[in-house]
């Protein structure tokens, strides 16, 4: 077996608090193969952005990785010194944030920002770096790139700015790009353009992608596999098509039903009662048990592990027997 590009093992992220630590991400594990696009979906507070920040080493204090390991091509990166991490960040892992206006510096031209990033990571002359920057802008679909490169961020529209951010993330040919809600701040017509650019460019540059979003539609269009997060844990992880068409975890199927779609004829949306628990009172056992209509005694006591069912893994006791029967086969 080859080593996966990225391997996250039992990641736990904690926030210290007067009453003891709050666990925001609790035992998250997944692998990412080279060239793969993994979607991470969940509602606010599910821990999806924290997982992304932890991988790229930008977890804001007081949040900290309490345990677990992150490996990039077999090399452990979660315990590196800041200066060593800085070499990886940008060079081997690129990042696209939600709001393109805050991730670009308003006081520098696009050229200055791109060239700085390129020359930090690659041994290129000023002129070569500029050529490369223009090429990148061309790739992400900025018209008249050689002229517009000397403009400031405010001279671009929101959609164009997000394209620049994607160019920046790809500037040093990273192996992995983490995109945290890259289309949330955009209108739907522009959103479609940005998804296309992100997908196409990352494939072309051979970068794997972790796409963090709350929008299942974006995931459906873009990702190969999806991890559904709930209360800091992975509820279900597997190929996008299988999970969207045939969700196994009660939370995933509730979530899918609650999304209004263009094709649907029903009058009422599926409704999951209640809300995701606060970090301070995550129930024992399965975090979803108080809202789950299938919950039984075991769910309230013992925390489910990821059980392989039908090509995917589900953290739900309902499928415990399925695993046994699959093993028997």
């Amino acid at each position, binding site marked *: 077996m080859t080593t996966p590009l990225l391997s996250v093992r039992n990641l736990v992220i904690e926030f210290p608090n007067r009453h003891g630590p709050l666990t925001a991400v609790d035992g998250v594990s997944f692998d990412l193969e080279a060239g793969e696009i993994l979607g991470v979906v969940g509602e*606010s507070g599910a821990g999806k952005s924290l997982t992304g920040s932890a991988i790229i080493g930008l977890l804001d204090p007081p949040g900290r990785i309490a345990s677990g390991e992150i490996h990039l091509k077999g090399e452990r990166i979660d315990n590196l010194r800041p200066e060593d991490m800085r070499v990886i960040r940008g060079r081997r892992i690129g990042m696209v944030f939600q709001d393109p206006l805050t991730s670009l510096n308003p006081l520098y031209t696009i050229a200055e920002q791109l060239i700085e990033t390129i020359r930090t990571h690659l041994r290129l002359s000023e002129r070569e770096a500029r050529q490369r920057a223009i090429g990148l802008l061309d790739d992400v679909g900025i018209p008249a790139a050689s002229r517009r490169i000397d403009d400031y961020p405010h001279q671009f529209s929101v959609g164009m700015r997000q394209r620049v951010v994607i160019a920046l993330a790809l500037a040093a040919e990273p192996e992995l790009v983490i995109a945290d809600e890259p289309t949330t701040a955009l209108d739907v*017509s522009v*959103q479609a353009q940005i998804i296309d650019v992100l997908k196409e460019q990352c494939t072309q540059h051979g970068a794997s992608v972790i796409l963090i979003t709350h929008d299942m539609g974006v995931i*459906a269009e873009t990702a190969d596999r999806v991890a559904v997060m709930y209360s800091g844990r992975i509820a279900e992880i597997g190929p*996008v*098509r299988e999970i969207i068409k045939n969700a196994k975890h009660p939370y995933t199927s509730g*979530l899918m039903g*609650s*999304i209004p779609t263009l094709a649907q004829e029903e009058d009422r949306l599926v409704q*999951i009662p209640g809300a995701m628990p606060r970090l301070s009172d995550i129930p024992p056992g399965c975090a979803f048990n108080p809202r789950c209509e299938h919950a039984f005694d075991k769910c309230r006591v013992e925390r489910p592990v990821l059980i392989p069912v039908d090509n995917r893994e589900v953290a739900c006791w309902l499928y415990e027997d399925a695993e046994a029967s699959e093993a028997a086969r």
Partner: protein
Amino acid sequence: MTNTPAVSATPLLQVSNLTRVFDVSKPWLNRLIERESKQFLRAVDNVSFEIRKGETLALVGESGSGKSTIAKMLVGLLDPSEGAILFDDQPMIMDGSERMMDLRKRFQMIFQSPYASLNPRWKVADIIAEPMIVLGVEKDSARIGARVDELLGLVGLSAADGSKFPHEFSGGQRQRIAIARALSSNPEFIVCDEPTSALDVSVQAQILNLMRDLQDRLGLTYLFISHDLSVVRHMATRIGVLYLGALVEIADSKELFKAPQHPYTRMLLDAVPDLEMTGRQRKEVEGEIPNPIDPPSGCTFHPRCPFANDRCKREVPGWTPTRTGVTACHGVEEGRIPQAAMAG
């Protein structure tokens, strides 16, 4: 209260040629030094529509299309620059007269962010009671208290929640409080400005279901504003599509999604991510919304429109009746736009 959710033919609200212009000029001295003239932005441009009793009219559009400006004008938070709004055949002029105060009780608004629209220093019961007191619907404090408890129950909270403060509630629960407040003066018409955009999808489903239940139960009429086409399709009886401050198409909700007429409507529908994974090919959408201070001539959509010709660049299109509603497009009028077969 009525139990008939049926849509009646009489319009409850009539909006004709509504226009709002904002002065976005630089300060006087800058204009003088830089020899620039004043600049105006037509946020809402000659918009007319009517809403029938018991129906939900949805306005969709991207940022800057004038959705929220229309909402604010309808409830009197902004004065129209031109045009008229008739509520139940009476002109809406916010002059503080007794007639207006009577009219004012009959409509309410739900805002986008329940984090910003509830006063953090007020108890929930006081927040919900305020419209009753201000509008003089109820004066007796015991009756107000009973009504607040009833409203809390109606939106799925408990009477005990009245003594709490907004920060003790989640986003979805806060939006329920905002809905209870909107209902407290017994209105017939509610303007909902992106009521679920700040909420997570599972919570959004709860709020959308609640709003529909309340509509059936209380016979409410909604103006529903959203940028999310799937949400709009779920809620609306009819849909108006806005582009750069002007309506480009109004049609029956189900029909609009089956057979969109205006090229902009088609583009918007094409851009919706395909959750069913039907393999529908999303068409690459060209360009972005132009600068509203200096909008394109003729049909404002012509620079992005694949069917535009010379006439579109010169002439502002008027309304053309379609099988499903009306649309403002020269191409549809001349019959030179091929019918698109939309999935769904």
